[in-house]
């Protein structure tokens, strides 16, 4: 997978562990299925990606897209009684899928670790911050209680907690929201993991604190060369923090590429829709937002073919007719690309037309749906 890096991050200096010596994490054809009372739910359906050391992969999707399920599958945290995980996950050359629970325990918190959305509930209310940070360090390095405590204080200082020695004795409820997420990061990085999965790490935080935390994650990555999987619903968050982006919809990856490519020249109609419907600080605020009509599909009975086709305006433009979108599942190519039946040219031209950029070649080849908000609303209502 050769993806050009964004110029900004390259300018920030190479990571200590040079990227390029093979992917640190590789996920191949991951499928996660839940057994529920209403039937099997295909939460993740054939997901593949790779990630190198020192790099950040942003996985973007709305609720139910399978992005969080993916992270739990990598850590092997799903309940085996209700969940079937298939496919291959390799971490640092080791097979993770099918590994024994004891071996997984040795990897978790050590080689791969995770931070969660809400640091208040994700930290134990019954133990001090220092103890919670020291706990995985003791387990994975066999350090003494005193050494682990010193390490916890060191980590707290590193993530910017003032008076770390004193604050290590505090409980999470005595920390503010931003400090809790810092403590969470300290805990996840205490064993210098090769992979950090951050599942909506800033969604529960205020915007000024979010900016601090994202910058902090970036700086720590520069130092340690950790590979980061950043899972979020917020395109803005991945835009600032990720090298590469994977867009997920209904359990499948629909587009992949570098951050600049996916956000600057997106190829999949769903990504177009996401970008169009996200309010920003630059576009004309008096123009209505252009939402994606309809609602995400139920994973109990996903639509056949392309999961996005019921909400998509482009099936009529597809070579082979609109029936192809509901019959044939488009594959996501290796490297840069989108899982869409539109030809590569149509995909490129599509965004130019969507974004309404003047002078874009072939902007007339794909018509933009005339979507006054009211039309779309009615469409949803009839559903």
């Amino acid at each position, binding site marked *: 997978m050769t993806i050009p890096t964004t110029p900004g991050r390259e300018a920030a200096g190479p990571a200590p562990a040079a990227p390029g010596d093979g992917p640190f994490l590789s996920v191949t054809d991951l499928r996660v299925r839940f057994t529920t009372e209403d039937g099997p739910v295909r939460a993740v359906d054939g997901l593949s990606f790779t990630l190198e050391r020192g790099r950040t992969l942003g996985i973007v999707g709305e609720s139910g897209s399978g992005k969080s399920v993916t992270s739990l599958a990598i850590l092997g*945290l799903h309940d085996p009684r209700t969940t079937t995980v298939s496919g291959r996950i390799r971490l640092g050359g080791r097979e993770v899928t099918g590994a024994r629970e004891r071996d997984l325990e040795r990897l978790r918190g050590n080689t791969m670790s995770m931070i969660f959305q809400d640091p208040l509930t*994700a930290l134990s*209310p019954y133990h001090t911050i220092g103890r919670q940070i020291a706990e995985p360090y003791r387990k994975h390095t066999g350090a003494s209680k005193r050494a682990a405590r010193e390490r916890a204080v060191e980590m707290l200082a590193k993530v910017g907690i003032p008076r770390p020695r004193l604050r290590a004795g505090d409980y999470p409820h005595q920390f503010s929201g931003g400090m809790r997420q810092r403590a969470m990061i300290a*805990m996840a990085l205490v064993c210098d993991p090769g992979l950090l999965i951050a599942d909506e790490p800033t969604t529960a935080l205020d915007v000024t604190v979010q900016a601090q935390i994202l910058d902090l994650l970036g700086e720590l990555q520069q130092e340690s060369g950790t590979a980061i999987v950043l899972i979020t619903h917020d395109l803005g968050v991945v835009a600032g923090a990720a090298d590469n982006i994977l867009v997920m919809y209904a359990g499948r990856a629909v587009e992949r590429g570098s951050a600049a490519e996916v956000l600057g020249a997106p190829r999949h109609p769903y990504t177009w829709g996401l970008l169009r419907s996200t309010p920003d600080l630059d576009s004309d605020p008096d123009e209505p937002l252009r939402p994606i009509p309809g609602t995400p599909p139920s994973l109990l009975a996903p639509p056949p073919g392309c999961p996005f086709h019921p909400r998509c305006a482009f099936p009529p433009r597809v070579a082979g007719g609109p029936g192809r979108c509901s019959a044939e599942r488009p594959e996501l190519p290796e490297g840069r690309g989108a899982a869409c039946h539109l030809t590569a040219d149509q995909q490129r031209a599509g965004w130019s037309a969507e974004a309404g950029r003047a002078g874009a070649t072939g902007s007339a080849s794909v018509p933009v749906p005339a979507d006054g908000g009211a039309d779309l609303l009615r469409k949803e209502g009839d559903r």
Partner: protein
Amino acid sequence: MLRFLVRRSLGALVILLIISALTFFLFYSIPRDPALLACGKNCTPEALEVVRRNMGIDQPVPAQYWEYMTGILLGRDYAVGPCPAPCLGYSFVDNTPVWETILDRFPTTVSLAVGGAAVFLTVGLATGMLAAARRGTVVDKVLSSGSLVLSSMQIYFVGPLAIALFVYQLGWLSQPRYVELTEDPAGWFAGLLLPWCVLSIIFTANYTRMARSTMIEQLQEDHVRTARAKGMARRTVFFRHAWRGSLIPIVTIFGVDLGSLFGGAMITEFTFTLPGLGRLAVESVTNTNLPMLMGVMLFAATAIILCNIVVDAVYALIDPRVRLA
């Protein structure tokens, strides 16, 4: 902590004052005249008057209450003799100080209640957590349905049945009796084993179900998932991270259950004819022994309120977010 204790003790005093007033006025305004009963068959009005004065019921009820309350704090003098503080009066039946009789009977009830609580807390929590850990398996199903059946076993029904089976039929256990713990610990244990088990059956069943559900809830908590994501072993996750949180609702319910625990202990005493406060209370009702009844009531209320203060203090031990004030 000190502030908490002082504040709660003040509150407890107010509650006790209300309870004492309510029970006193209720008991002492019943239509039956205890003096008439005590006076006997050949009672003259003069003799009745003397009996009344000796009993301390010759004055209007509010005045009696006042004397009763000052007696508790300062002691008082009766015709039959002095009654040092805390004076709960003299028994109408055998003219012994109520306080002494209560002190005499109290250890039996405490032994029963504490022992019973120990049984149902350990057995109930252990089986409940086992069921939670083995959720969905045969073990879980047997424990869950078993506890459902047991939770309908009443003491007065199971008690006699248990004696018939374990004492007379199988001869595994000795006849329930009360021996002072300080005199003969082994005898104390052997004599109370059957009552403990019978008393704790329903509680055990309820605590099993409760421990199971709170534990399952805790295992789904975010911070428990974090512990697993840190690489903690299942056992560590279970006992270090999930267990503590599951205790909080259990402690809450235990505080509520204290009253029924004392009640259960009293029924158990009656079922197994053990000399405790429960039997004393029942005897006092049949004899219209008002001072004794009043004393037992007040004593039990005090004990339950004190236990509740302890339970609240335990919260702070379990959960650092709870601040006692």
